[in-house]
C-alpha cells in the first residue's frame, strides 16, 4: 500500500540516476551555450573564469541533491533566518561598489546574500503555508506577506531594486501556488494599482526613474542613460534572422555594447546568432520551465510541489525581465540572464535552487509512476 515499500532503501549515489533527464539536459546545454557566448563577448580568460564558477555551482547543485528531502523541509526556517541575518550584516559590514552595498567579503570569495533570498523566501513561504493541510486563511496570508516583506525591504535598502523585485515576486508566487484565495488576489491587485503611482513618486531613486523615462525615449540622452538601450537594440536588430556570425558582432566586438558579458549578454547572442539563435534559447528556457511546472503538479507533498513550481516560474520571470530590458521594453533594473551571464552569485543561487528542485522532484516520481499502473 505504501509507495515507499515498492522501492527499497537506496544509497545516495544511486539516487543521482533518478534526476529528470530533460531538465538536466536543458541546463547542460544552457551552460555550454554560456561558455560559448562568453568566449566571444569577453575572451578566453573570462570564459575560463566562468567555467570555474560553473564547476563550483555544479558542486553546490550536487550537494543539494544528496541532502535527504526531509532535511530540506526541516532546515527551511534555519536557511531563512540565516539569510536574513546575512542581509542585515551586509548593511553594516558589506563591501560597496558603484553606490550599493551588496557583498560580504570572505577573502577570495564574495557573497551576495540577496541572491540567496530568491531561494529562501519561497522556501519559507511554502514551509509556513504547508504546516496546516489546508489553503491559507487570512492570518496565514498576513504572516506570509510579512515573511516576504522583511527580506525584500532589506534588499531594497542596499539598494538593489532588481533583486528586491524578484525576491518579492518569488515569495508571492509561492503564496499563490499554496492556494491564496482569489478574493485576496483581486484586493491585492487593486492595492497594487493604487500603490504603483505612489511608488513612482516616492519609492524609487532618481536614477531609476530616469532609466524608466529614457526607456520610452532613449534618443533623448544617447550618451547618458539611453546609451545602454540604444546600443543593445542596435545589436539585436542588426543581427537579423541568421545573425552576423560567431565572433563577428560589430556591436559587441567593437565595444559599443556596454556590460556585454553580464546583464546585456543576450544582445551579443542576438547579434551574432540572429533570431534563429535566440529562438533556440527561448525554446530551451520554455522547455525547462514547462517541464518543471508539469513535474511539480504531479508531486503529492504540498511543500515540494509549491516550492518546485515557484522555482521554475521564477526562472521564467528572471529571463523575461532580462530579455525584456535588453530588448528595450522593460526598464533596466540590473538582472543577469540566468545560466548565461558572467557572474557567480546568481548562478550559484539558481543552481542551488535547481538542485533542491531536482531533489524534490526525484524523490516523489515513483509515486506518480505508481498511479499509472
Amino acid at each position, binding site marked *: 500500500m505504501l509507495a515507499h515499500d515498492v522501492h527499497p532503501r537506496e544509497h545516495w549515489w544511486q539516487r543521482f540516476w533518478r534526476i529528470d533527464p530533460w531538465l538536466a539536459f536543458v541546463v547542460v546545454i544552457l551552460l555550454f551555450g554560456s561558455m560559448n557566448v562568453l568566449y566571444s563577448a569577453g575572451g578566453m580568460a573570462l570564459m575560463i573564469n566562468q567555467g570555474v564558477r560553473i564547476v563550483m555551482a555544479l558542486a553546490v547543485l550536487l550537494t543539494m541533491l544528496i541532502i535527504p528531502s526531509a532535511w530540506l523541509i526541516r532546515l527551511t526556517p534555519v536557511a531563512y533566518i540565516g539569510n536574513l541575518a546575512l542581509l542585515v550584516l551586509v548593511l553594516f559590514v558589506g563591501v*560597496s561598489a558603484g553606490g550599493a552595498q551588496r557583498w560580504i567579503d570572505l577573502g577570495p570569495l564574495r557573497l551576495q546574500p540577496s541572491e540567496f533570498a530568491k531561494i529562501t523566501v519561497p522556501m519559507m513561504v511554502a514551509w509556513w503555508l504547508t504546516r496546516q493541510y489546508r489553503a491559507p486563511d487570512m492570518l496565514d496570508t498576513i504572516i506570509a506577506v510579512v515573511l516576504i516583506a522583511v527580506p525584500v525591504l532589506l534588499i531594497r535598502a542596499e539598494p538593489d531594486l532588481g533583486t528586491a523585485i524578484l525576491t518579492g515576486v518569488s515569495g508571492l508566487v509561492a503564496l499563490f501556488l499554496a492556494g491564496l484565495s482569489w478574493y485576496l488576489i483581486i484586493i491585492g491587485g487593486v492595492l497594487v494599482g493604487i500603490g504603483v503611482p505612489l511608488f513612482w513618486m516616492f519609492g524609487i531613486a532618481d536614477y531609476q526613474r530616469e532609466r524608466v523615462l529614457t526607456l520610452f525615449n532613449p534618443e533623448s540622452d544617447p550618451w547618458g542613460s539611453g546609451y545602454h538601450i540604444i546600443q543593445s537594440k542596435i545589436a539585436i*536588430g542588426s543581427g537579423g534572422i541568421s545573425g552576423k556570425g560567431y565572433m563577428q558582432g*560589430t556591436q559587441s566586438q567593437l565595444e559599443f555594447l556596454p556590460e556585454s558579458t553580464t546583464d546585456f549578454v543576450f544582445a551579443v547572442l542576438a547579434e551574432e546568432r540572429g533570431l534563429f539563435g535566440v529562438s533556440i534559447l527561448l525554446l530551451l528556457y520554455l522547455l525547462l520551465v514547462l517541464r518543471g511546472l508539469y513535474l511539480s503538479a504531479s508531486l503529492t507533498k504540498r511543500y515540494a510541489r509549491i516550492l518546485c*513550481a515557484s522555482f521554475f516560474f521564477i526562472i521564467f520571470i528572471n529571463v523575461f525581465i532580462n530579455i525584456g530590458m535588453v530588448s528595450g521594453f522593460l526598464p533596466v533594473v540590473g538582472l543577469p540572464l540566468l545560466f548565461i551571464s558572467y557572474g557567480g552569485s546568481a548562478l550559484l543561487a539558481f543552481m542551488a535552487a535547481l538542485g533542491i528542485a531536482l531533489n524534490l522532484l526525484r524523490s516523489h516520481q515513483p509515486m506518480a509512476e505508481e498511479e499509472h499502473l
Partner: protein
Amino acid sequence: MNKSDWSDDPLRNQDADHGEHLQRSFARRAMLLAGITIAGVVGLFGRLFYLQVDRHEHYRTRSQSNRVRIKPLVPERGTIYDRHGRALTENILRHQVVVNPWQVDDLDALITELGGILPLSEEEIADFRTRYKRSRRYEFVVLKGSVNEAEHYRLAAVLYRFPGVAIEPTHERYYPYGSLLSHVLGYTNRINQKDLETLNPDDYHGLDSMGRAGIERQYEEALRGKPGFRQLEADVSGNLVRLLSEKPAVRGQDIYLTLDVDLQQRISDVMGDHRGACVALDPNNGEVLAMVSRPSFDANLFVRGITQRQYNRLLNHEHSPLYHRAVKGRYAPGSVIKPMMAMAGLHYGLYSQQSRVNCPGYYRIPDSSTKRRFHCWQRSGHGSLDMEHAIAESCDIYFYSLGYKLGVDRIHDYAQHFSLGEKTGVDLPDESSGILPSRAWKLKQHGSQWYIGDTINISIGQGFLTTTPLQLAQMTCIVANDGIVYTPHLLQQYYDPQVASFRAPPTIPGQQIPVYDAAAWRAAKHAMVSVMNSRYGTARRVGQGLDFTMAGKSGTVQVISFQDNRRILSKDLADEHQDNAMFIAFAPVDKPRIAVSMVVERGGGGSSVAAPLVAQVIDHYLHGSNNART
C-alpha cells in the same frame, strides 16, 4: 501535527478529499503559470521578431554607421603647492609603449624583436604577459611604462613593422623633493583589481593611477579632475579614422598647503640621522607648518609601480620608514605633559601655585601596603619645590603626588580637552588617536582594574598613556594660545582651473577650551619659560643666546619599543636601551607664532638632544626671510 504535510507521516487520512481538492487547485494554478510562461515567451519572440525582422534594415544601417567609438581623455592631476607657492609635485610627460593584443599574432616573436630595439627587463615582460592575458579586445596593454627620447625615436622609425604596437603620451607624477615630503603628500600608484571593484568607473575612465596615502589620498577627488572623452570614427575593423567630437578632460584642482618646505627641509636637516618625528603648527590658526617623519622613503619609487623586492625592503626595514610617525606614531609623552598636569592641579584646586612638595628623591604611595618606591630622575632629590620649580626642574615627585591627588578620572577628563586620546582631526588619512587611559579602557583592554600605580605612571606621562607627535604639538598650541583650540590642518586653499579662481575651505573659528583659567595658563607658560631661561631650568643652556623668548618642556622617556609588535634584535640592544628624547616648545612667548613638538627615538635626554634641535627649528622659522613679520 500529523495533518501536516511535512511531518514524516503524511497523506491519505480522513482529509483525503481535502487533499485532492488542494492538489487539483494546485494543478489548475500551475497550469495558469504555464500559460503565462508560454504567453511571455511568445511575447518575447514577438518583440525580437519585430526588432530582428521588421526593423532589421533600420538597425543594420545604424550598426554600420555605428562606428563612433569613445576614447577616454585622461585629466591631468592637480599640482600640490606649499604655502609660498612652491610646487611639491610635478606631472612629467612620458611616452609609453602599448600593444593591442588583437593585432598581434605571435607574442613571443614580438617581444624578442622589440627587445632588440628597447631594453626590456624580465620584470616588465612578466608583468606585460599577465596583463596581456587579462586584456580585452581593442584594449591596449602597456609593455614599457616609459621610454626615453633615444628609445622613442629608435622605435618610432621602425614602428610600421609592428602592427598593434603604439607609443602613447602619458603623465607621470613626480615628487621633486623626494623623500622630504613622502609621508605628508603620500603618492599615487597604479589602480589595481581590488580598487576597481569599489570605485566609480565614471570617475576613473582611462585613469590608471590614484592617490594612495597622505594628501594625495585625502584630496584625491579634487586632485583627480574629471575624465573627458573623444568620439572617434572607426572603420568596420575598428581602426580609428576621424575625430568627431571631443569633451575635454577637466584638469584636477591645485591644492595649496599650509606647509612651508623651507621649514620642513630645515627640520629634516637638523634631525640628521636621528629617527623620530617633528610637527610645527601655527598656534594662531592651526595651520601645519611642517610635519617630518624620519626615516623616510622616496615616494617616486611607488609611482611607476614599486618592485616587490624594493617594497619588501621598505616594509621589513628595522626602522619602518613607511610609517608616518608624526600622525601615527604612539609615544609615551613623558615629562612634556607636566605643564598640563600642573594646570589640572590648579583647575581642581588641589594645589595652588605656591603649594610646595618636598622631593626626597623618591615617592611612596600614601596609605598603601606596598613599599614600592617611585624614584625621581634626580636620585638625590630636589628638596622643597613650588609649581614653577617643579616644571622647570621636571621633578617627578611633585607630579606623583599631584597625580595621586587628582586620580585617573580627573586626569582623563582634563587631558581630553587637550585632544589627547582622540584624533586631532587633521586632514590626513589614518591618524592615530593615541591612548588616554581610563578605568573603563583598562578593563576593556587588559581585563583588569585600575591600580593606583597606573595613575602614578601616567602623571609623569608614562605607563599606558601614549600620544602622537601631532597631538603633542596640538597640546602645545592650546597652552601657547590661551586655550583657544584650532583643528590642525594642511589645506590652505584650492585653485580651480575651470573657473580660474582660488577657493578656500570654510575656516573653522577657534574654540575656547572649557577648562580655561587665565591664572593657571599664565603660571604654566611662565614655568615653561623658566625651563629655558632660568638658572635651574632643565634646558637652560639651549635658552641662552636666543634673541627671542622661547617656552618649552623636555621629556626623557624610557621605552622598550615604540611599536608593540616589533621584536628587539640583539644587535640593536644597545640602541634600544636609549631613551626617547621629547621636546615641546612655542615662541615668541608673548605672541606665539610657532608651536613645535619633537620626538627623537633613542635620542637620549630631551633637554640635551631634542631641545637644541627644536631651538634651531624655531630660530630658522622666526628669522626666515619668508616668515619675518613686522
